[in-house]
């Protein structure tokens, strides 16, 4: 009976060999896959246990990790939560969601390759690994002015430093409290998250850069004016039709001025005056004259169609690819299918302010390791030259007129020359229009460029919305910046 016992021992060796292989597969070969699974609670706990870096506005943390006694070791807390919710995003059981928490997750969590040498030294010195601190470009005063201005309404506001592209304010209303999503009670967090998903006005959406996109309305006339001036066919003094409406080819529908009142008594109006009073027929005509390609090209130079990351992803704004003449006339006044983010319109204002050069917007000023070494530092870069300095100067002059004597007088600031443009964008019949305002100041040496949109803030078929509702918010934001 010894021979079969010997063979049996070979079988036993085979069985154990199979176990050695299976354990090796799990613990070595596929370990990284298993550890990387989103439902892996051990990995989640391990990332929670590492002290996540802070997010700063100025020197004040708006997101920080506080030690706790529970198994997660640290609790993420947000100060001024409502004000900065879309800037920070939140850090929860769903991972880092939205805002800088998500887009700078690797640096904040300390897992970035840029922190490699630091991690190695942590290993030897026994120092607790820590994430890097992210310093934003935001100006708390401007942010607060924008948020207070929009108040309970729905809307968004963006402020840029025209010379660098630094984002000074990034506001989207309604907002939410990220603290309610960063708790360690999964059931509660989930309930809060579900109710926010269903909430009126979709507070989790960042309207400033990634909402459903808005029709820009008359603020887009600045782009049309830029295209017209660049084409060489027009100067600020070129005369255009300024009646109560413009007869459009191919259709029975005319392009009416708001309120169906003539832009000027004579029925003719200069390009500059057309912008000052926001004359629809004049821009409809100018748009058809220069053509869809020129308009699209001009828009693209301001950044339309670019997939920007600031570092959050900005939804590209768009001018329709195919348009017939009447549609082109509509697009020239910011209607039809022109869709923009407030960020894009702020870039338009900033580009004109910066002598025609659009700077790439950025939200992160610097990233600082826990040993205070600078890991990353913002380097302002040119995105494009949207218009020549001469055209920019002409546009600035026209926009100053808007604020001095036109539809945007509510944005005037004592002792400062402000350039701006109102907009009232219709989005469906019978609904109140979106109120828009873009501006920059001081006009001769711009320190801030702003775009504000207040949803349903205007009255249909009237140009008063932008000037009445959005311009004062822009004014408050500019004042906040200039008073520093």
């Amino acid at each position, binding site marked *: *009976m*010894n*021979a*079969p*016992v*010997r063979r*049996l*021992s070979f*079988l*036993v*060796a085979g*069985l*154990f060999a*199979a*176990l*050695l292989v*299976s*354990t*090796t*597969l*799990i*613990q*070595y070969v*596929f*370990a*990284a*896959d*298993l*550890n990387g*699974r989103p*439902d*892996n*609670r*051990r*990995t989640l*706990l391990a990332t929670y246990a590492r002290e996540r870096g802070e997010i700063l506005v100025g020197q004040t943390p708006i997101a920080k990790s506080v030690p706790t006694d529970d198994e997660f070791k640290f609790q993420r807390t947000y100060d001024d939560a409502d004000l900065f919710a879309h800037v920070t995003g939140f850090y929860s059981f769903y991972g880092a969601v939205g805002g800088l928490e998500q887009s700078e997750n690797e640096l904040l969590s300390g897992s970035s390759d840029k922190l490699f040498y630091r991690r190695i030294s942590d290993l030897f010195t026994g120092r607790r690994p820590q994430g890097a601190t992210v310093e934003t470009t935001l100006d708390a005063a401007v942010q607060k002015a924008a948020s207070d201005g929009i108040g309970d309404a729905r809307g968004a506001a963006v402020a840029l430093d025209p010379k660098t592209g630094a984002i000074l304010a990034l506001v989207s209303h309604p907002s939410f409290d990220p603290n309610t999503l960063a708790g360690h009670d999964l059931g509660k967090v989930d309930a809060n998250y579900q109710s926010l998903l269903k909430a009126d006005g979709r507070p989790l959406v960042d309207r400033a850069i990634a909402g459903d996109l808005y029709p820009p309305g008359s603020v887009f006339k600045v782009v049309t004016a830029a295209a017209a001036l660049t084409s060489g066919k027009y100067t600020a003094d070129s005369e255009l039709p300024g009646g109560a409406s413009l007869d459009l080819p191919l259709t029975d529908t005319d392009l009416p001025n708001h309120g169906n009142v003539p832009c000027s008594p004579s029925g003719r109006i200069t390009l500059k005056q057309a912008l000052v009073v926001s004359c629809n027929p004049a821009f409809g005509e100018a748009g058809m004259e220069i053509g869809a390609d020129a308009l699209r090209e001009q828009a693209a130079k301001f950044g339309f169609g670019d997939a920007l990351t600031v570092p959050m992803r900005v939804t590209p704004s768009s001018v329709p690819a195919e348009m017939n003449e009447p549609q082109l006339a509509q697009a020239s006044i910011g209607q039809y299918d022109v869709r923009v983010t407030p960020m894009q319109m702020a870039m338009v204002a900033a580009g004109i302010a910066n002598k025609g050069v659009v700077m790439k917007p950025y939200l992160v000023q610097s990233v600082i390791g826990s040993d205070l070494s600078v890991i990353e530092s913002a380097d302002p870069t040119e995105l494009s030259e949207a218009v020549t300095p001469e055209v920019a100067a002409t546009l600035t002059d026209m926009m100053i007129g808007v604020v001095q004597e036109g539809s945007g007088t509510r944005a005037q600031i004592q002792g400062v020359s402000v350039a701006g443009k109102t907009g009232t964008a219709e989005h469906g019949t019978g609904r109140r229009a979106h109120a828009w305002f873009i501006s920059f100041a001081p006009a001769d040496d711009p320190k801030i460029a702003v775009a504000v949109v207040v949803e349903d803030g205007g009255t249909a078929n009237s140009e008063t919305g932008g000037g009445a509702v959005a311009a004062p918010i822009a004014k408050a934001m500019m004042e906040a910046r200039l008073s520093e």
Partner: protein
Amino acid sequence: MSTVSSVAPRSGRTTELVLVLGAVGIVGLAYVNLGLATTGTVPPGLAALGLGYLGVSLAFHVVLRWRAKYADPLLLPIVTLLNGLGLVMIHRVDIARGRDIADGVALRQLMWSALAVAIAAAVLVVLRDHRILRRYTYVAGVAGFSLLLLPLLPVIGTSEFGSRIWIRLGPFSFQPGEIAKISLAVFFAGYLVQTRDALSVAGRKILGLTLPRARDLGPILIAWLASLSVLVFERDLGSSLLFFGLFVAMLYVATERVSWIAIGLGLFGAGAYVAYLAFAHVQVRVLLWLHTFSPEALQTSDQLAKGLMGMAAGGMVGTGLGRGRPDLTYLAESDFIISSFGEELGLVGLFAILVLYALLVERGLRTSLGTRDGFGKLLAAGLSFSLALQCFVVVGGVTRVIPLTGLTAPFLSSGGSSLLANWTLLAILLRISDHARRPLPDESAQSAVGEARTEVVKLS
């Protein structure tokens, strides 16, 4: 031919003593390590527990010196180490789950360990010769099959985690399958040693394989039906595989006919396939096994997935004792104790444990080779193989080699019935090995295999 030797044959008891001291030392170190990792202090009960564990091991060692002087010297140290590591890991899971030592699982396991050692010692004292067991062949058979099917009885049988392999009597519950394993090994050994001549008679030859005669197929069919009923009615693939595998392996050893293995594998494969087609619970087990991380499987049960993630977290060298999160795995102190070891001791630690098991089985098979009587040979081979198969079913289950079943890792997992049964199994193996290695009074009758002494530590 053997030569006359004037040197007294080595019993190996001193080697055993040194190894037992080493094993207890490792367990003590693991316990200290755990205390330092979790509370930062040396655990207060270290001296009492360490000395207690040492005392129990040494007491068993003394019993061996007294009653089984020539028993294999490796078996006790290996089991001492496994049992001790199991205790430390169970205590570790207690800590992770926030259980106090008084109502923790570890204390109960410790008491069961002491009881199991006492019973094993008693078996060694009472059972002076393993061949006595042969007298009770049929008693063991009846007992074995009854125990196996006991959980199916209405009042005392209970289902846990989908398997009906427990019986409950008042406050006590145990898995009778563990004890059935020994009874059946005794029965198979006694029965096969009687009938092996008949069973190995050649029948027809098909495809170069000499089949047994049709009339001899009775026993294997009965074993097959019994194991299938365990699979279907107790919903326990592990026990089913264990018993049928044990029977087929012993049948093969007894008859030396490969055809029995072919028939056995064929029968089991066919039976399992039919059960898969016919029974939803078998299909669920297979789904969990093959598509562990599919949404449907996770909805049914994520315990295997959790265990795998725990092992992956351990990686090559483990998180260190007391530094992982075994509490995130279900049944981390029983069915999934292997995952707990994988997490905290890493692949390296798991390999060490698997090698300990392999050594244990190998020593058992070596005992079988060295034994002179057929009954002892069969019994030792059967008991050792049952250990190997149980390890394979348990570790294979948590590492996705085979579908997961509810068996315990021998000596490691928490569970009184498992400890009692496996220590008793150890006692019987020790008894047989004592018999195998004992020098014959009549030198000329010594067989070639008996002469080839089992070397433990090579001394030049």
